[in-house]
């Protein structure tokens, strides 16, 4: 059983097409509506998704973990992380699943930098933010040589799902997941995925918040 987890906050414009396109590749689509103030919840429900609604906005990491709890309860064999803003291409799902199965890996990380399909990545992000984030935050913190740790496309096998509990509510979860992969000695593979930008996404100031969250998160259980 493959469960797609789609964290969504005010995504009424694209959530419908994302959910409909996912159904031809996975068994269940779970939209975690992170207290959207628009029609995200209704549209996702009308499209047939299971909608879990947060009463208050908790962040993408928190939404993914809510989806994880649901997937563990369902007994999912694979879990797909897929953003609700339509930036990913569903055509990448089947080859990515094949890759994780063939490699017998516990987790697959999508990367927009392993091929040339993601042409809309902003210049500043590609050449300034990404190297800084990779060499200053991600690699020292996680120890994993990932080319695109903050890519929201991931596939987790049941073994990884049982080990990875996301405690970072915000965007720092993208650094926490590789950290947990290393901590629990899970095997991983990277896979090229296409990313289409509809908005700028995370800024440099968001990077500072990630560092702060990771630092203070170390003081909590």
């Amino acid at each position, binding site marked *: 059983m493959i469960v797609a987890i789609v964290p969504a906050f005010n995504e009424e414009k694209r959530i419908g097409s994302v959910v409909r396109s996912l159904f031809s590749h996975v068994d269940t689509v779970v939209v*975690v509506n992170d207290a959207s103030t628009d029609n995200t919840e209704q549209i996702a429900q009308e499209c047939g998704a*299971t*909608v*879990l*609604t*947060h*009463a*208050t906005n*908790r962040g993408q990491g*928190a939404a993914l*973990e*809510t989806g994880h*709890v*649901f997937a563990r*309860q369902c007994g999912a064999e694979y879990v797909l992380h897929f953003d609700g803003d339509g930036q990913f291409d569903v055509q990448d799902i089947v080859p990515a699943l094949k890759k994780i199965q063939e490699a017998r890996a516990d987790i697959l990380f999508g990367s927009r930098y392993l091929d040339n399909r993601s042409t809309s990545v902003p210049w500043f992000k590609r050449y300034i933010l990404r190297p800084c984030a990779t060499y200053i935050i991600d690699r020292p913190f996680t120890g994993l040589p990932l080319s695109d740790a903050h890519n929201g496309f991931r596939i987790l096998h049941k073994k990884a799902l049982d080990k990875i509990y996301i*405690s970072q*509510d915000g965007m720092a979860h993208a650094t926490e997941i590789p950290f947990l992969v290393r901590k629990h000695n899970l095997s991983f593979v990277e896979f090229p995925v296409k990313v289409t930008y509809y908005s700028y996404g995370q800024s440099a100031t968001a990077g500072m918040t990630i560092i702060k*969250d990771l630092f*203070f*998160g170390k*003081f*909590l259980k």
Partner: protein
Amino acid sequence: MKTLILFQFIFIAFTAVALFSLIKKQKEHVLSTRAFVFWILLWVFALGVVLLPNSTSKIAATFGVGRGVDLIIYCAIAAIFFLISGLHIKLLSQRREITRITRKLALLEDRVNKKG
């Protein structure tokens, strides 16, 4: 010297207001006895230092700091840093608690909807 006297006068007034507020809070049972005693001692100590500025110089000298006032500033910065960090960690812990409750509610609501 005149500035210092003026500052001392202002600080005495400020301390009086703080002590009055502490006593009021203690009477209203907002503060625990331990916290009340801690804050009273802290304000009395601060007043003593302001009224007798040379009293801290000897302690400062033993730490290799030139002036007593410098030692107080260093200690105050360290204490503020410690307090703010503690508050931040507490805040983060409470945020995670809110997330846990929010998650439970979301999953419970889904279960109820499916049963209904």
